[in-house]
């Protein structure tokens, strides 16, 4: 192997590491409601953000609209969203400029439903895209699809989802919202590593 080839391989490993950090930092900012920091993780050329059935938000302006509505919003201490960024599989494109990643997210929550407080379990899948600009990795597309969202007490078999949460100012309705028990699988961004299919 010559130096140039080796350099390419090292860069690829660094890219994967940086993207993993980016995704995990997103989680660590999200759980403390640091939405301004979340918005800054997105490229100016962002394609879209789609979270559960909130709908599709296109472009960086829409990223600001989607998360920005929550910036500075007072949140009582008991409300929380712990989203565990788990099990990332990152594939960097051959040109090293974009990447895709799939992640699992077991989550704990507490939030109001009308006048009552509820504690909930959530589970979902990310299929995200990343872009490298000026040597730094950014989010290009974020899509989190809900598997279940259930009350702590009752569980996903009895209550697969607690309610519908479409956002009125979305650019388009959700594209792949089929929670448990639909049997729907979010398509894999990657090929089978052995068969290539």
């Amino acid at each position, binding site marked *: 192997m010559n*130096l140039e080839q*080796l*350099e390419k391989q*090292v860069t690829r*490993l*660094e890219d994967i*590491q*940086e993207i993993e*950090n*980016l995704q*995990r*930092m997103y*989680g*660590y900012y999200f759980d*403390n*409601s640091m939405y301004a*920091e979340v918005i*800054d*993780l997105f490229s100016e050329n962002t394609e879209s953000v789609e979270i559960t059935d909130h709908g599709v938000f296109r472009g960086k302006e829409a990223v600001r609209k989607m998360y920005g509505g929550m910036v500075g919003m007072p949140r*009582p*201490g*008991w409300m*929380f969203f*712990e989203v*565990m*960024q*788990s099990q990332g599989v990152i594939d960097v494109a051959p040109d090293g400029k974009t990447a895709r990643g799939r992640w699992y997210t*077991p989550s*704990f929550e*507490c939030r109001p439903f009308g006048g009552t*407080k*509820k*504690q909930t379990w959530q589970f979902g899948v990310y299929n995200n895209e990343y872009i490298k600009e000026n040597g*730094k*990795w*950014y989010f290009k597309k974020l899509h989190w699809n809900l598997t279940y969202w259930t009350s*702590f*007490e009752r569980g996903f078999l009895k209550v697969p989802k607690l309610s519908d949460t479409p956002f009125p100012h979305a650019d388009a309705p959700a594209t792949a919202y089929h929670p448990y028990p639909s049997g729907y699988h979010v398509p894999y961004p990657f090929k089978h590593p052995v068969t290539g299919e």
Partner: protein
Amino acid sequence: MNLEELEKQVQLQEDIQEIEHLQRKYGYYFDTNMWAEIVDLFSDNAESVEIVDHGVFYGKKGVRRIYWDMFSGGGTPRQSPPWMQFIVMQIGGVVDVSPDGKAARGRWQTWLCESKPYGAFNRQEWLHGYYENKYVKEDGQWKMSLLHWNNTFCSPFEDGWLNLPLMGWMPLPDADAPPTAFHPYPYFCNNVPYHYKHPITGK
């Protein structure tokens, strides 16, 4: 890029990998009560260990005191029944190695499934928390130098974090100092400061 620069970059990737494994091995040893093995993961120059409201334990002596004397009962054969369990899942590490390659910091989160006795009762519980840890490289090996784990909640399986955020206080009498950042749910937000700057804005 010349060979020397490339070597440095490869070294950084290896360091991050080794530190991630070190932290995960800590978890796997913890799960199975292998306290001697855990003590050996710490540098002889370890700064401190602080776990929930147990308090702060300084130095390698403090490391031995909390894991070996307190958790392991001084190495007496473990008396606890097999139903007692501490599973600590080490999730989402963000590891930053210092420019000189000799020290590092890492933020992790943890999801736990535990069962342990409360007085005469056997309880099953869910826990969540954050680590902000420090690591040090000595003689080519990464070791723990500071471990700080802060609890988000410790709640019964049956009632959940909304109804019962904390199952009890657990200060250890042999600690060197009281806990520095123990504010569980619902006062946990922003308790564990970030060791890293924002990757884009640098703030």
